[in-house]
């Protein structure tokens, strides 16, 4: 306990703690759990880390992210100690150069860290992959995503109006963490598609804009189901950002069953959308952007949503009933790339 270096405050009760933390701008606006020495130490022990261990260094702001600060913010977010290895893995992923953490968190575009967890740790810590998967339910989903937001605020200065310049942001900036429903999916899990060995746990993190929900309950044809997703991606390319990058696709059980019954694997969806999610510059005229139709290489210039089929992150998740799906668009094309990081447990 004596190893902790952060200042210690002697406050009367949880109300006084929250008053001070809110006043000093150390929260996301919601109440926090007081990070007592004991709770912080429990988190460090669960991760097998010394308080001074540097998890990563954010290169632009030159801020080291120590295990002690991660543990403090994890406790504040409501995390159980068993969540710590996931939080640590997300930080390592975000600090890879290709993630462009500074740009994606400072930008007016207002992205959030969309986290997908694969592997056995999902069940050990109770991560939700089914009903209401993109929203409230499980403590693990809610608190892991929230811990990342609090670390961004308190360690990296991602304070709205200062180093977070989001014009709008989106609700995923409170928390944006899901698990893949591996047990109820016929397909290769996302992490294994991205070179993580079977049996290992991993996170995949992307700078994501708000999810767009889709619905198609009127076909059994996998091409038509994939086409509904592709149409939403094309729409995003025109109304938000034209640039190619990682898109995530959330495919629920009802649609998975139809797609799989036709013999399609994830790579078939990826190939279809790679070919179909394309627009030409003149399409901008249909969404109020006539002014830029004749710039660049002219009105016939073609744009694709994906540099390659692998850039589409297909995730099996969602409740068992309903032909609803979602796309999660990238913040700014490939300026930030999704990163998959193995979860190490001590």
């Amino acid at each position, binding site marked *: 306990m004596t190893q902790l270096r952060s200042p210690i405050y002697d406050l009367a009760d949880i109300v006084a703690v929250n008053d001070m933390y809110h006043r000093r701008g150390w929260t996301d606006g919601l109440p926090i759990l007081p990070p007592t020495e004991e709770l912080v130490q429990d988190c460090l022990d669960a991760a097998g880390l010394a308080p001074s261990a540097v998890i990563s260094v954010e290169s632009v702001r*030159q*801020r080291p992210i120590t295990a002690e600060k991660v543990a403090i913010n994890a406790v504040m977010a409501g995390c159980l100690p068993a969540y710590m290895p996931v939080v640590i893995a997300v930080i390592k992923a975000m600090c890879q150069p290709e993630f462009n953490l500074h740009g994606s968190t400072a930008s007016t575009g207002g992205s959030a860290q969309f986290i997908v967890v694969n592997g056995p740790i999902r069940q050990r810590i109770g991560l939700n992959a089914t009903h209401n998967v993109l929203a409230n339910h499980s403590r693990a989903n809610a608190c892991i995503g929230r811990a990342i937001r609090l670390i961004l605020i308190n360690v990296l*200065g991602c304070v709205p*109006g*200062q*180093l977070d*310049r989001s014009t709008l942001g989106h609700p995923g900036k409170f928390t944006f963490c899901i698990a893949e429903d591996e047990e109820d999916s016929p397909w290769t899990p996302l992490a294994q598609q991205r070179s993580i060995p079977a049996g290992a746990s991993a996170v995949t993190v992307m700078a994501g804009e708000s999810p767009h929900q889709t619905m198609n309950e009127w076909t059994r044809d996998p091409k038509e189901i994939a086409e509904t997703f592709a149409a939403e991606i094309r729409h995003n390319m025109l109304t938000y950002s034209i640039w190619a990058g990682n898109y995530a696709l959330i495919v629920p059980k009802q649609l998975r069953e139809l797609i799989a019954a036709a013999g399609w694997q994830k790579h078939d969806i990826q190939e279809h959308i790679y070919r179909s999610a394309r627009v030409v510059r003149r399409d901008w005229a249909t969404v109020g952007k006539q002014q830029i139709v004749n710039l660049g290489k002219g009105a016939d210039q073609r744009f694709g949503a994906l540099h390659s089929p692998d850039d589409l992150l297909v995730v099996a998740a969602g409740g068992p009933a309903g032909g609803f799906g979602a796309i999660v668009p990238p913040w700014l094309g490939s300026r930030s790339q999704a990163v998959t990081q193995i979860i190490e447990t001590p």
Partner: protein
Amino acid sequence: MHDALTAEKAGVAATAIITDRFVPTAKAMATVQGMSDYPFAVIPHPIASNSEQTLHEKAVDAVQQCVAILLQGETQADA
């Protein structure tokens, strides 16, 4: 802002052009890089939707501010 600060640290004289609504962010970046008093040019927001004439006026304004910042030491030495 980060590019300008990086250039300065490498010994290359630089400055940044910031639109007025981003001044707090520019100052925050200068502070985290340990150069809180770093001067920069400020022009009115926005840029993307400006007419060509407005953009030209802002460019002239920006150039004048940048020249003044970059030659600040030079002017004092000459005086």
